[in-house]
């Protein structure tokens, strides 16, 4: 594959995706600060509400995203180095992780709403539903991006533009992972 001539020391993706990642991190930093302020000002409400969350849902989703990121990293690496003949399978596995995350999140929300917790219950649940909802939107977009990467990885030969696309898409998926880890820590573990 022509992608093999790409220098390894080069920053993956393109400048635009890094600018996007930076921008997204800035926005989510504001979200994280809001959670931290809420935690400080309403410590008891936050602690009580946090206890009603099921840690296993959050843990399961964390493992799904971390595993998905691992699959994407392998897929991109193998495409870039021209290794293997069925690199698409790594993206299929990552898509599976993404879809499982969405399903798990739906079950979790359904259980919470069924138990009488909604975004209007208190500030903790407002942040819980809205910020995990915005993150879920990222996951859905990420799955669409992974489907696109899957198609790209199935091309007979990959040029430098294809490799850049794979890297940029992979970076977005890692961002989705990183944002979840922060949300998991702040909402489930703090």
């Amino acid at each position, binding site marked *: 594959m022509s992608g093999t001539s790409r220098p390894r020391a080069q920053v993956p993706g393109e400048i635009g995706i890094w600018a*996007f990642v930076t921008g997204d991190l800035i926005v989510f930093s504001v979200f994280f600060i809001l959670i931290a302020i809420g935690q400080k000002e309403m410590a008891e409400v936050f602690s009580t509400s946090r206890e009603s969350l099921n840690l296993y849902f959050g843990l399961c989703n964390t493992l799904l995203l971390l595993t998905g990121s691992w699959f994407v990293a392998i897929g991109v690496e193998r495409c870039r180095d021209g290794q293997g003949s069925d690199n698409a399978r790594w993206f299929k596995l990552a898509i599976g992780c993404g879809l499982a995350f969405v399903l798990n999140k739906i079950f979790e929300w359904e259980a919470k709403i069924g138990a009488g917790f909604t975004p209007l219950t208190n500030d903790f649940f407002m942040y819980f539903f809205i910020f995990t909802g915005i993150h879920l939107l990222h996951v859905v977009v990420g799955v669409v991006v992974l489907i696109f990467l899957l198609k790209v990885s199935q091309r007979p030969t990959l040029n430098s533009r294809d490799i850049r696309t794979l890297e940029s898409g992979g970076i977005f998926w890692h961002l989705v992972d990183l944002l979840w880890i922060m949300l998991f820590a702040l909402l489930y573990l703090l």
Partner: protein
Amino acid sequence: MDINTQSSPESDGFFRSALAFGGYSGYAAIILFIIGGVWLGGMLPPLLNASDSPAQAVAKVSDNLLAIQIGSIFLIASFALFGSFGAGMAMQVRRYETTPGWSYIQLIFTAAGTTLALIVAFAWALMVFRPETYHPSIVLMWADLAYFIALFSVPVFGGWCVMVALSIFFAEEGNEPFPRWAGYLNLWMVLLFAPGQMIMWFKEGPFAWHGLIAMYLPFIAFFIWIGVMSHLMIKIAKEESK
């Protein structure tokens, strides 16, 4: 800045003047909004709160009646210019198409966005038309309507940005209508607009229509977006005239 003028289609002075007009329309829209929406009109920062009672809303509006009335005139002028701003971007995309596609889709979103924005200005003007005659809850409803149309229309304004981004990403390599980083900027805008839909459920806090996340973030992002895309249009027009 990586503007691919080398491989861009040929342009004439007539086209360049139209493209620059689109860009300057964006700048003018920002200035007019600062005068009408920020300085006089009380739209940003919000004079009213989603948690205000109808009586409180009427009192605030009545205390600032003339300023908001004059501000409404600037507001509608600002929002009308979204049309020529959006058409400028679509024109630039059209030049890179053999058969029109993305440019048409962009035009539809431009038309929808402009129409919605104009209704925001109408609602704002009606709020201060005769607050002493309207039932107080109707005055508050005009404010609700203005903010709902502005903030809840994420699929329209966000969709507009997505269409601009896709027209960049699907263009031939090295022959994009705008730099590729502008495509990512447009996608980022969608994220910034998205919390606007939360206003449905909150009347207090950061997700209410006067809140930090649901109101300040989308409004400021939207006008920064207009500023950046206007700058790119004017830059392209100037570089091609050399």
